[in-house]
């Protein structure tokens, strides 16, 4: 907001007219799942107007001609028809982005919770490459993280294809380094991500699961199916601060302390800033620190592990991950955290990445364009399921509500289905009426909230109140083959009025 008050331009691309949209110079209320059509049209318009950064494209990128050919069909007229965004707004965005001395593209799950998530991201990266809006202060591409350690989890190797510090899990040199440090033989091949694991359960290739700090029984798309698979496991261990719905399915539950206030450690924010969490409270009952639980488990499995402190674990990470080498606890404390990469104890941490693309000559590989095509949501609308359901979050709540359900938010209204005034009229629905919402996978009953910020044909809800409304009974588990993310943002539903409470709102 400080930037906007200083005169920065803001364009908001979102199917819903959010509060951010109200501050924007332009709100592009696109149809759910038409992000690539929009991005390619913006790219084509930039090229048509000759606004691309030719020097940057020539010196630092690959695949430009293929990209130009791929976006050629995405005229403003085509884009208006496909995205439902007026052509003049797309043109305005294209020109503002290309002409800006510095411009940033930020996104969150609206881009990534689709069956073609990675292509969506690539379509945006293409725009940054086209205009040279990358590798310089104030520019860049920036996925905004939804949890305090989404970035850190990946950076620490809690993804199947990486070791800590972004080192490839199939790279022989990296394998040799970690095998030497850990005195262990490591798998040659990358592992499974969450969606792969569910697929493996389906094939009965995975029968034992150790879940730490996640509630897949409620957070997975197509919840009924996900629960059947979890129930079918031979052995399920859940380590969490609460007895979650997933925990209720488990053979063994390890009560854990809350990582941000009952134990210490590091998390990494959206800006790659590694920050220290410190212990402020004694955990309740038998709850223990995650590291203590894992060390105890290792001992029970026959390994001679002492109880490592979080700082010892961190220092081991620093010894193996060049990105984190310079981040001692003392420096993290002193500097309010440090953004990686930070190679030694004199290094301040990089404020932005990819500056190499502006070096002469370009340091390392050139940045590739990716020719990607519009591919609508897996589930098309039809007469039986004519409305597009998109899911998301509300300000005062968080994911399945396990945490945010614990405080008395005056803004909390319980679960609601937001619907456009026109669709509400067509269905004979008034504010607060209860309606049955059905998809091909399940149905839920939910009170109606009429939202003038939604276009006809679009309905919105969250999954914060799973015990009242199990929204993920509706969602589809069509997943992106590269990232494994499910298409939480787009499924087809129908809405039916079931009663009109005489007292009005529910």
């Amino acid at each position, binding site marked *: *907001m400080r930037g906007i*008050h200083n005169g920065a331009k803001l364009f908001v691309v979102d199917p819903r007219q959010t509060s951010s949209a109200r*501050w924007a110079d332009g709100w592009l209320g696109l149809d759910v799942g038409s992000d690539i059509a929009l991005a390619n049209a913006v790219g084509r318009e930039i090229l048509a107007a000759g606004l691309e950064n030719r020097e940057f494209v020539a010196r630092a990128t690959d695949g430009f001609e293929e990209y130009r050919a791929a976006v050629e069909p995405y005229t403003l007229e085509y884009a208006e028809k496909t995205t439902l965004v007026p052509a003049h707004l797309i043109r305005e965005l294209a020109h503002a982005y290309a002409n800006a001395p510095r411009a940033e593209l930020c996104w969150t799950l609206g881009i990534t919770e689709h069956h073609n998530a990675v292509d969506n991201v690539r379509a945006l990266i293409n725009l940054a490459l086209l205009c040279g809006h990358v590798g310089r202060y104030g520019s860049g591409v920036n996925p*905004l*993280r*939804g*949890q*305090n350690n*989404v*970035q850190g989890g990946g950076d620490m190797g809690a993804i199947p294809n990486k070791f800590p510090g972004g080192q490839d899990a199939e790279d022989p040199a990296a394998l040799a380094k970690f095998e030497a440090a850990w005195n262990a033989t490591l798998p040659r091949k990358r592992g499974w991500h969450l969606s792969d694991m569910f697929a493996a359960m389906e094939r009965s290739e995975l029968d034992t699961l150790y879940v730490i700090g996640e509630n897949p029984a409620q957070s997975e798309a197509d919840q009924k199916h996900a629960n059947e698979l979890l129930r079918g496991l031979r052995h399920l261990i859940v380590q969490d*601060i*609460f007895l979650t719905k997933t925990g209720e399915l488990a053979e063994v539950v390890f009560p854990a302390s*809350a*990582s*941000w*206030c*009952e134990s210490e450690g590091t*998390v990494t*924010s*959206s*800006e790659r*800033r590694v*920050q*220290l*969490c*410190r*212990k*402020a*409270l*004694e955990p*309740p009952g038998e709850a223990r620190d995650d590291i203590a639980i894992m060390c105890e488990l290792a001992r029970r499995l026959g390994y001679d592990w002492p109880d490592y402190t979080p700082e010892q674990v961190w220092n081991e990470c620093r010894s193996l991950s060049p990105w984190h080498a310079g981040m001692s606890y003392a420096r993290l404390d002193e*500097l*309010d*955290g440090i953004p990686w990469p930070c190679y030694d104890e004199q290094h301040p941490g990089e404020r932005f990445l990819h500056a190499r693309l502006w070096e002469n000559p370009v340091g390392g590989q050139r940045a590739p364009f990716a020719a990607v095509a519009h591919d609508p949501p897996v589930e098309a609308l039809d007469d039986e399921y004519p409305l597009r359901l998109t899911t998301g979050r509300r*300000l*005062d709540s*968080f994911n399945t*509500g*396990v*945490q*945010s*359900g*614990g*405080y*008395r*938010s*005056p*803004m909390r209204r319980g679960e609601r289905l937001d619907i456009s005034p026109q669709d509400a009229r067509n269905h004979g629905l008034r504010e607060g009426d209860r309606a049955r919402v059905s998809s091909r996978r399940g149905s839920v009953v939910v009170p109606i909230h009429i939202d003038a910020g939604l276009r006809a044909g679009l309905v919105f809800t969250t999954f*914060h*109140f799973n*015990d009242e409304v199990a929204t993920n009974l509706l969602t589809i588990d069509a997943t992106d083959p590269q990232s494994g993310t499910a298409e939480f943002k787009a499924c087809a539903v129908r809405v039916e009025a079931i009663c009109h409470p005489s007292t009005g709102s529910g």
Partner: protein
Amino acid sequence: MSAEKLALTIDGIEVTVAAGATILDAVTQAGIETPTLCFLQSLTPVNACRVCVVELEGARVLVPACARRAEAGMKINTNSERVRHSRKMVLEFLASTVDISTAPALQEYCAEYGAQPQRYGPKPATVAQPVKIDNALYVRDYAKCILCYKCVEACGTDAQNTFAIAVAGRGFDARISTEYDVPLPDSACVYCGNCIGVCPTGALMFSSEYELRASNQWNETEQKQTDTICSYCGVGCTLTLHVQENEIVKVTSPIENAVTSGHLCIKGRFGFSYVQNRPEEGDDVSA
């Protein structure tokens, strides 16, 4: 601030500051402490409280140090009789009309400047009004409000951009209000609590603090403050947890922090209860 440097004299001490710096910056650089109430480095100066006034040689009136830009050759006196007299009067006006029982800085200034609010009689006019308790998260006791405007600024363009509150009324009747004085749940408030974070007098207070104070259990000397990182989103706000008897009783955020300058959202400020709700207390932890 530009690279240009300005030299000025504070209480006889030569200091050099960057162009654009305020007199307060120069005073601080000279190592002199100046009282402030409505000033905060993260907010736009509004010149509301007049407690930071200093004497500028050659100027007809005292000038507010927090807002007035330093100029080359200025000669400033921060501790003249005129300055001390003015500050004392300001503090007396505030202390006689406002309940300053939860405003330690204001109490200290009163002692330092020998303010005697009782000079205004046994029953001076006050800004007292009933305490507003209209939501579960925070309490508004405007009998403690000195109208420093900080909450309005934090709710507005300086931080939250929500504009749920403003100053209503004129003169002595001026007060902080939601639109048409509606209760907070009917207002635009999004419960970020950034107003509580900047309030210098305790007029805006966590419900947890208010209730502990009411039952005489608030024990600040026993409380421990620990900085950690919020558990919710990826912004990485630093939370200072104020803990008493192994319970978080209040959350603040350090104003000098590089990430969000002390500003938080509803989840960071108030969303901590889940770590200390115990089922036997009857709270809803099942959601």
